[in-house]
């Protein structure tokens, strides 16, 4: 099957999703590159799960077009077997054993690997005879991961699945994900509001904020756009004037400001000459600043933000 060797891409064109009066997605246009590990980031209620639901044909958009591997996934017999969307809430048969659940899913997933499923059950210490209804939150999440990875779907979307896991299980999950991704390349979308740990796993990043796309680019590029400028207050203020200031902290006479934008070599030199220290900004911080309601709600006035 050629589909499992490359992974499937996703395109959204002007997609809007309303639930009654609530607009969950607002005219979203977006591409997920095939074969990437893409981070779908956003605060709670930003529309991540809704977006994934549309891509996985769990629901139909109010308006706009969703394409998975070039086709509308809704009730599409070719596409849906290759799209695996795992939600933290779980979509399993609660009163049947894990083994029964695996049998059910494996019969529906063309590329399902029993071997990988077995390895992952061992890894997460899941007993195949147990029922999902009897599992702890962490173990339930882990079983979702087992289904998600063992299905080897050309498009796999994991929604917040790592949040319920304890630290050792999370690292085991990252390792298993990378190892299987390297051996069986496919498109993986990791959706979360906590990105610190998964930051390095991502090739591309999509940031949603209140139903709109705030950022969609490669992770390396986004990281390079975040810059912290530290130094004497007046020097920092002079340097960041006119720039996209995301946040600012003052400690006595020293100010640390987070700026978005790439500096030229000349600007870097000018900053160093002015006694300013330039540093990286973790993606998680950048994300928090970008989706700060106070920043995006108002006129995002740079000077006002710098005074805070």
């Amino acid at each position, binding site marked *: *099957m050629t589909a*499992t060797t490359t992974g499937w891409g996703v395109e959204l064109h002007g997609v809007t999703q309303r639930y009654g009066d609530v607009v969950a997605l607002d005219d979203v246009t977006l591409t997920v590159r095939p074969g990437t590990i893409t981070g779908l980031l956003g605060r709670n209620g930003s529309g991540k*799960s809704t977006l994934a*639901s549309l891509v*996985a*044909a*769990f*629901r*139909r958009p109010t308006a706009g077009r969703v394409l998975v591997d070039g086709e509308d996934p809704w*009730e*599409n*017999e070719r596409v*849906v*077997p*290759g*799209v*695996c*969307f795992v*939600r933290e*809430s*779980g*979509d*399993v*048969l*609660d*009163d049947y054993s894990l083994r029964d659940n695996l049998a*059910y*899913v494996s*019969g*529906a*997933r*063309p*590329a*399902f*690997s*029993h*071997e*990988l499923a077995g390895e992952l059950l061992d890894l997460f210490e899941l007993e195949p005879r147990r029922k999902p209804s009897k599992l702890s939150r962490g173990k339930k999440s882990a079983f979702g991961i087992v289904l998600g990875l063992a*299905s*080897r*779907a050309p498009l796999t979307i994991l929604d917040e699945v790592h949040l319920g896991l304890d630290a050792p299980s999370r690292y085991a999950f990252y390792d298993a994900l990378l190892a299987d991704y390297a051996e069986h390349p496919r498109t993986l979308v990791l959706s979360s509001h906590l990105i610190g740990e998964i930051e390095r796993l991502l090739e591309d990043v999509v940031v949603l904020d209140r139903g709109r796309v705030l950022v969609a680019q490669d992770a390396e590029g986004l990281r390079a756009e975040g810059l912290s400028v530290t130094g004497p207050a007046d020097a920092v203020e002079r340097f960041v004037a006119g720039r996209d200031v995301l946040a600012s902290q003052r400690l006595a006479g020293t100010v640390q400001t987070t700026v978005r934008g790439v500096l030229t070599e000349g600007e870097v030199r000018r900053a160093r000459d002015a006694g300013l220290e330039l540093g990286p900004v973790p993606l998680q911080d950048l994300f928090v600043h970008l989706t700060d309601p106070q920043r995006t709600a108002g006129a995002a006035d740079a000077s006002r933000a710098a005074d805070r």
Partner: protein
Amino acid sequence: MTTTTPRRPSPTAHTVRRLGAALLRLAGWFWALAVVVIVLANVVGWATRGSTDVSIAVYARQASTWFPFSLGIMLVSAYLRVHVASGMTRRTFVRAALVVQVAAALGYAAVLTLLVLVERAVHDALGWDSVITEVQLADASAPPWALLGDLAVPLVLANLSGLLVGIVYQRGGAWWGTLTLPLTVGPVVAALYVPGLRLMEVPGLWTTASDAQVLVLAVALGAVLAVLTASAFSLLARGAPVAAKP
């Protein structure tokens, strides 16, 4: 052992097997219990009155109508979400659910008919009567096929109605689910009690037609209602969004 298969089995067949296995297990419990109750009731009748002159088995008609009805609701609420999440279309779920529910209805009708006939044979051997007091067309003198047809109509309708009630509750919530019950369950109730018109000799076609004619009429009417119920279920299920588990 190969770890990947290039093709998956037909999703409809896969789901029919899965749902069929679940229903079969529950049917086993249901009929085991039914047989015990039927035998006990016969024994009690014999012990208290010296003989049991009515068919006890046919009283299972109500239970074997409403039990699979409730299973129909369960199939929709438990399986539709998991089915779609496992990478299958609603279309194949609808097909599979219709197949297993109609098969279950015919199976229940066949088992029930068989129980009535066996009980009748036992009663005959003991010199007892087997009067049918249920509100239905086929009486104790009716041939087996008439009994089967008569029992099958409400059973098929109830099985399909269960699916419809399940999907209406899932899509419309408790308010709409309850409000539309007369429409979704009405046909089953009608199929169960329409024979009463003939028994009460209400003037009209039901009373004037021959036994065979009225049975054909009941089956035909049941078939029309069954198709309508199945179509409504199909239409609603094929557009159903799959919300997260609450």
